[in-house]
């Protein structure tokens, strides 16, 4: 009697297993790499209705963040400035420049400039800006070197793991309150200065919540 199965069938189960393992590896690696906010959010750089350069205003001119984002240290929400803030200078500087036509139109009509939001925490996260900046967490920790960005992009992943990394080890991220808005500040290297900075966590009673309800209220 002839064989029911030809000889090559013997290799099929092994080949199928190898194929499945390869597919599984590819899917796991792909999902890990592409489903993470490090891929989905980081690098998001929408074109804004006005080509506002943070690099020039915050970097070259060194205007304080709070000149425009005035309420960041008084409110949970860090505000986008009204066009009157732009016009405080641009009623004199580049006052007829076509690049600023949208700003002038907004100032005259009262219609807001349709800025495109870059950093958007999910609606179930209750992030409060003022409590962070008033306790020594610099703008740069979450927003990156905005003063070097011609066009603002999403620099950090702002995932839950990102938040928790700092909430678990605040002493590695805290800085003197007067350096919060200085995006170029470097952590000192000598041990004495480091221990002084780490002491802020205790001195200011910084106790970042790690429970769910701390942020998901």
């Amino acid at each position, binding site marked *: 009697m002839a064989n029911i199965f030809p000889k090559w069938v013997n290799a099929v189960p092994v*080949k199928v297993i*190898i*194929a499945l393992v*390869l*597919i599984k590896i*590819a899917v796991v690696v*792909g999902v890990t*790499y*592409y*489903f*993470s*906010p*490090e*891929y*989905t*959010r*980081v*690098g*998001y*750089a*929408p*074109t804004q209705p006005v080509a506002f350069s943070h690099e020039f205003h915050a970097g070259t*001119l*060194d*205007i*304080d963040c*709070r*000149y425009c984002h*005035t*309420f960041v240290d008084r*409110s949970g*929400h860090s*505000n*986008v400035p*009204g066009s*009157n*803030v732009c*016009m*405080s*200078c641009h*009623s*004199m*500087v580049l006052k007829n420049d076509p690049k600023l036509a949208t700003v002038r139109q907004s100032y005259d009509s*009262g*219609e*807001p400039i349709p800025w495109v939001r870059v950093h*958007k925490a*999910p*609606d*179930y996260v209750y992030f409060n800006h003022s409590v962070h900046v008033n306790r020594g967490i610099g703008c740069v920790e979450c927003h990156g070197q905005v003063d070097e960005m011609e066009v603002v*992009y*999403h620099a950090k992943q702002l995932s839950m793991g990102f938040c928790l990394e700092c909430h678990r080890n605040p002493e590695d991220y805290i800085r003197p309150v007067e350096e919060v808005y200085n995006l170029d500040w470097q952590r000192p290297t000598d041990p004495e200065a480091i221990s002084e900075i780490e002491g802020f966590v205790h001195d200011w009673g910084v106790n970042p919540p790690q429970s769910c309800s701390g942020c998901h209220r």
Partner: protein
Amino acid sequence: MRIFLTIYILVIIATVSILGFRGSLTEKEPVEVFNDMDRQAKYKPQAENSFFKNRQNDRLKPSLAVSRGSALDMRAVFDPDFQGVSEARLIELSGKNEDGTFSNDFPFEVDYKLMQDGQKNYNIYCVSCHGVSGDGNGVTKPYGILAASYHDDRLRNVEDGYIYDVIANGKGLMYGLKDRLDMRQRWSIVLYLRALQRSQYTDQNDLSNKEKSELGL
């Protein structure tokens, strides 16, 4: 098997070439992979709201309305002897006396904390145009902004209330800052501005002997 491996590698190459790498700049809005309640039907600050005609979520206050806490002390209003805004409160609010002239009374207790706040606020909101020492040589001067120097007889002799009024409501080319600074912040800037004036216009008899010897007088 060979066919499978070819397809496998082609699929990986296709995925990577379509999706790219982490952190590359993109105009595409971040994809919310598991968007469980990431965007909820609730009102957030400075957001869009299709219910209103101008699509703004934040409502402007009706004309002539006064927001709570900005004008009248509520406890005073409900006092049986309430007559109207007291003169002291009027000075605090507007820098003016009851007869409309500028007041020279400083409505807050002057202490080091208020001076420090004034320095902080000055260095956020004023320094770009008026300069670190208040001489009108701010960083924006080369771009065509004309800012007053505080170091002339007119501004040295002017009432505190006048300076307060200019900070709040602006003057000439300068826009007012009352939408961004609360009363205490404005008065703190008045205080710091007086200190700046003093720093550039001090009689040597006001200096201690030690300070004089340091300066070689």
